[in-house]
């Protein structure tokens, strides 16, 4: 099951895995850590968060007046986060709050 959530006013009605592969970036969660501490993308981009741990995560994205909650993200299930509005976003795991990273949207 893939979960889609939308940020800001510009929403993408549906995004296929193929399109994500062409336009998005992937951040892995492994060892209770994001694979990168920071990421810069263009507005309208999508970040796919994968979960290579065997424990579940719960991604929360906050910034620019929006809050995005992935819900429980079980191992192996990707979470696709569209970033439609320029600004700086904090990404963390609600279950493991030491997991933190920043996404900057240009």
């Amino acid at each position, binding site marked *: 099951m893939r979960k889609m959530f939308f940020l800001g006013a510009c929403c993408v009605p549906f995004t296929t895995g193929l399109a994500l592969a062409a336009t998005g970036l992937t951040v892995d969660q492994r*060892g209770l850590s994001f694979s990168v501490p920071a990421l810069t993308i263009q507005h309208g981009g999508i970040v796919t968060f994968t979960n290579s*741990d*065997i424990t*579940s995560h719960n991604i*929360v994205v906050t910034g620019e007046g929006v809050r995005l909650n992935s819900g429980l993200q079980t191992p192996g299930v990707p979470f696709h986060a569209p970033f439609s509005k320029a600004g700086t976003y904090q990404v963390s795991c*609600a*279950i493991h*709050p030491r997991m933190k990273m920043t996404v900057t949207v240009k």
Partner: protein
Amino acid sequence: MRTLHDQGKSSTATRRGNVTGSRLCRLLIPFLAALLAALSLDVASSSMASDPAASFLDYYRRPPVDTVMPGSVEARRIALGQMLFFERRLSHSQQMSCASCHNPALAWQDGRRTGLGDRGNRLSRRTPTLLNIGWSEPLFWDGRADTLELQAPGPLLNPDEMGLRADRLVPTVSRNAAYRRAFGEAFPGKPIALETVAAALAAYQRTIVSAPSPFDRWVEGDPGAISAAARRGFVLFNTTAKCAACHMGWRFTDDGFHDIGLPGADRGRAAIVPGIAPLEKAFKTPTLRSIAYRAPYMHDGSIATLEQVLDHYDHGFIARPSLSDQIGPLHLSARDKHDLIAFMKSLSSPSRSGAPAVLSPSKGQ
């Protein structure tokens, strides 16, 4: 130089750096995928190749700890923090110190089901241990303090805990010449204030490091350091019993928040971070270091023995939507439970002696 750990003896000063904590933990804390993947590795070259536990050992190796140079500002802050930690005048009644609940002789807890406040009032949660607390941010059972510096004022000023009035803190400390001198040496150019009190307490607490246990000696290559039952328990811990899903790494905690299916109305982390379903009734994963000395167990102290803890995880939990998806029926045998407990007991240092008495400067000095 001083060592402060669960025995409270002194020989080599150690502390845990705040800034580097999360980075080191990322390096040192295993995640179960890697653990399970490691099972398939060829360990033929290892001297313990026939032992399935060998695959997991590196994930539990203790990290080196920082040292603090004698006479440095940091050492002075630690010394000041130690005085403040044992200072009973930092409570409303002047009878209660941090150590009243975080007793070094009781693995930096109090042995009670839940804590007691300055008025003798019963608190709602069990006193957490301070062992390895410098690595353990965020703090409190519900994680409401991101750092030790932010945590320290909480119990001091909480009317239900030490109950010190905020406007009494600075006068209480400042009237004492020895404290004035100690603050001047520890925080040159800075006033005596809540922030510097908290910084000193934080510096001291980062020196509270669990002493090496039989398990650590086994990890470092002493095959006889723990029993065969404990070795079997270690494998179960990492596989069938799924304990390591949360109790991972050398501190045996993921510093995460999970609903483990205990009864009670306490919302735990959900009261701090609302709107996240898995955080309902979720509490921070406690370390298992010195666990044999830290009964009763759980955030509410509701389980008296390790045997009962295993029964809870085996079949005693309450199934509900927020229950951690790591928890489910385990069908552990009596021997499994025996072995798991043997392993957990190997995480405790044989010494329980407390820290030496610290006589804080008395009034008028």
